[in-house]
């Protein structure tokens, strides 16, 4: 080790071995992947006129990725859905399948990230469809998710005094006032980028993960429902079994995250009281106890705009649960959760059957699943 040159060569070699493997080797192995169809035909060829994935990023989104990079968003957000055996990313609803190297070949800046203070954003574009929500969130995350630590970016917006066609109106419950935002071109680019984030296609090397660990979940849910049924039996042994089953399953959907759940609990809370000023209560609400058709409609398509519940005014957005989110609730699940909320926290009215849900779905089949109802619209219908 006394000869500096030999020493230098020695320590270079130790480095070079690793470099050969990780960098040169990796590059040879997957440095020139090309887009491919979702599945291959018998001869392992790409079928003719099949769509190829991944698709290049739209221009606006590519510009947005540079803005996203410049704001350092990837210090808190990863963009990689891990393998099923390495973590619960798929179960959490962050993707229908793990990410593959091929998914990233067109990205101008690859921002896999290594810390998740915020959720993974790989499939944000399939999770949050409403650009207005994204703008509000970008302007001030805390306005839409109160506990958030996602940094506000008010410098990307101009504010004006009044609402107009170009503004995004952000209602502030505390002061009972609205802020009217005009997005800058940078904000628009970022939102376009966020919307473009999706790995919603299959690849020959990785198919969608079917109902993650269906068996495990079933086991858990039966044990939960055993408990709940016991409870229920003690409380109201008079209930017919089919009804108590519906209520048990509804209770589970009420507090379970996607897939297979509605996470209602996140907003309307365990006690059904909602959060004052933000999320309306379900206990004692006309919307819950009253007209079944209206209740089913808002559950399928969602509800937005000003509404009154128990004499209080609320302005908010609830996305529908029938729309193609990561995994929409089916008729049975909607019927169950609605039956549950109609029979909990002192509520006690008739149940809702899957057939009733199906009937409403059929009668509204021309309505887009993502177009939310407003109170005004629903009340007109009533007339």
């Amino acid at each position, binding site marked *: *080790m*006394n000869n*500096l040159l030999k*020493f*230098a060569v020695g*320590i270079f070699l*130790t*480095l070079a*071995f*690793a470099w050969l*493997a*990780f*960098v040169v080797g*990796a*590059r040879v*192995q*997957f*440095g020139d992947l090309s887009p491919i169809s979702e599945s291959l035909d018998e001869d392992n060829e790409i079928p003719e006129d099949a769509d190829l994935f991944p698709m290049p990023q739209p221009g606006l989104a590519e510009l947005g990725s540079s803005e996203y*990079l*410049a*704001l*350092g*968003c*990837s210090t*808190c957000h*990863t963009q*990689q859905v*891990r*393998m099923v*055996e*390495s*973590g*619960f990313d798929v*179960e*959490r*609803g962050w993707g229908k399948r*793990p*990410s593959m*190297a*091929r*998914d*990233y070949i067109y*990205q101008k*800046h*690859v921002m*896999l990230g*290594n*810390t998740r*203070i*915020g959720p993974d954003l790989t499939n944000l574009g399939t999770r949050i469809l409403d650009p207005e929500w994204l703008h509000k969130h970008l302007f001030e995350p805390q306005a839409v998710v109160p*506990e*958030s*630590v996602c*940094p*506000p970016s*008010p*410098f990307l917006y101009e504010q004006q005094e009044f609402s107009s066609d170009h503004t995004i109106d952000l209602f502030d419950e505390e002061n009972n006032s609205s802020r009217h935002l005009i997005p800058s071109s940078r904000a628009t680019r970022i939102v376009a980028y966020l919307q473009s984030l999706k790995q919603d296609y299959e690849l020959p090397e990785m198919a969608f993960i079917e109902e993650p660990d269906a068996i495990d979940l079933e086991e858990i849910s039966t044990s939960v429902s055993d408990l709940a049924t016991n409870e229920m039996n003690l409380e109201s042994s008079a209930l017919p079994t089919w009804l108590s089953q519906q209520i048990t399953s509804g209770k589970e959907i009420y507090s*379970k*995250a996607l897939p297979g759940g509605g996470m209602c609990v*996140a907003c309307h809370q365990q006690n059904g009281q909602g959060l004052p000023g933000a999320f309306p209560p379900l206990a004692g609400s006309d919307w819950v106890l009253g007209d079944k058709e209206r209740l089913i409609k808002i559950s399928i398509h969602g509800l937005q705009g000003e509404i009154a519940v128990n004499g209080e005014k609320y302005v908010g957005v609830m996305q529908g649960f029938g729309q193609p989110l990561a995994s929409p609730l089916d008729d049975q699940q909607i019927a169950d959760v609605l039956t549950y909320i109609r029979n909990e926290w002192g509520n006690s009215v008739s149940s809702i059957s899957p057939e009733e849900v199906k009937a409403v779905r059929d009668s509204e089949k021309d309505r887009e699943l993502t177009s939310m109802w407003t109170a005004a619209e629903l009340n007109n219908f009533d007339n």
Partner: protein
Amino acid sequence: MKENSEQIIDKSLKLAVCFFIASAGLWLLAAAFFAYIASAKLTDPFFLSSFELFTYGKIKLAQANAFVYGWGGNSIFAVTLWVVARLAQAEARGKVLLLFAGSIWNLAITFGLLGILDGHMTPHEMLEMPVEVWPALFLSYGIIATLIIVVHRSRRIKDTIAPQWFLLASLLWFPMLFLIAWNGLEIDAARGTVQSVLSMWFGQNVIWLWLTPVALGSAYYIIPAILGRPIDKYYLAVFGFWCIASLAPWSVVHHLEGGPVPMWIPAIGTVMSIAMIFPIAVASTNFHATAFQDINKVWNSLPLRFVIFGTLSYTVSSYIGVVFSLPAVAKITQFSIINEFHFNQRVYGFFSMIIFGMVYHMLPRITGKEIAKSAKSFHFWTSAFGVLVLLLAYLIGGLTHGVLAQQPSLDWASSVISSVKPYFLITEFAFIILAFSQLVFVINVWKAIIPSPFELLNKLSLIKKGAT
């Protein structure tokens, strides 16, 4: 007055070493300031939120870069130059050139950080500073490294010892790493996640092969120098050195576990991380077996107290690091704020503490001025306390974060992040203590380096008297 050879060497080093230490101190303060803002933003997202300059992502990266290149880089130059010259018993050459290159290095980092704050960062780990500043950084690094090597080559004793291996290896590794990364990311840019593998490899290796060996080399130098006894089981050191050299470059990619890269990449990383037990064991045997033979002396010498704190924290947290790279554990903690624990224990608990000790050892010899013991000791206790609080908060917070994140039914913001928030608050508190402690360090250092105005006046009046 006749000076002995060590004094002559120190005199030849004075200007350059003082320059590097003084600038390192300023970067340390800058990093502390950024660290505080970033942590405050996690407890209150509205803190300074209307300034784009201060948005979390930018501040966070500015902090890491100011810390590693500003504080780390400058203090590496100072320590390496001094130790290499002392061991070679040779004087420094090209003082002006050293100062010139040092100024370029610092200017380039300044522009680099401004670039990050202005939104021109690159997505590559530890290469976030805009591409334009890297040639200047590389060039100035080259000049400084060459001048240090020139000193080493003119050494009186041909045989080299452990501190020299570690310091010179680190000096040479950084440019090698940089050229490899630069080639793969800028010149002949790879596509897709190959980029991520490369940038993660570089980012982690900067810590493992640039900062770490300097701290280890310093410890190998200072422990025998102060205690006046040889390193216990010194014959192991050469084994430890080559273990680090051959394992560390492999072990750093286990962070990609389960990610969109071929499986063998993180798998090798995991195996090699576990093998890192050997070099860690060697270093800690060498250091601690020597130090604990004379623990009183260690305790009473503040520089050594800093260094032993550093080596102990290196041992403990490296073992923790090995545990966290086991796949079963990595699955839980992979993306949690445990990463902050790893970063801070390495650059703070280990590297910085050892550098603090080295600086307190070097400065009095170079400037001839003692630093008040109470000031050093205050610095030691605040640093030690701050670092421990910080690391514990990140460790426990990281475990909480990881465990909760693994439960798909918990809502992200209202359950997972809300449970971690208390730890964010603790880290904010720790960063305030650390900022305070670093301020004391910088004052100590600057007081020793800059002649006080009164002394200057005194000297002037003496000269005047002599003239008349």
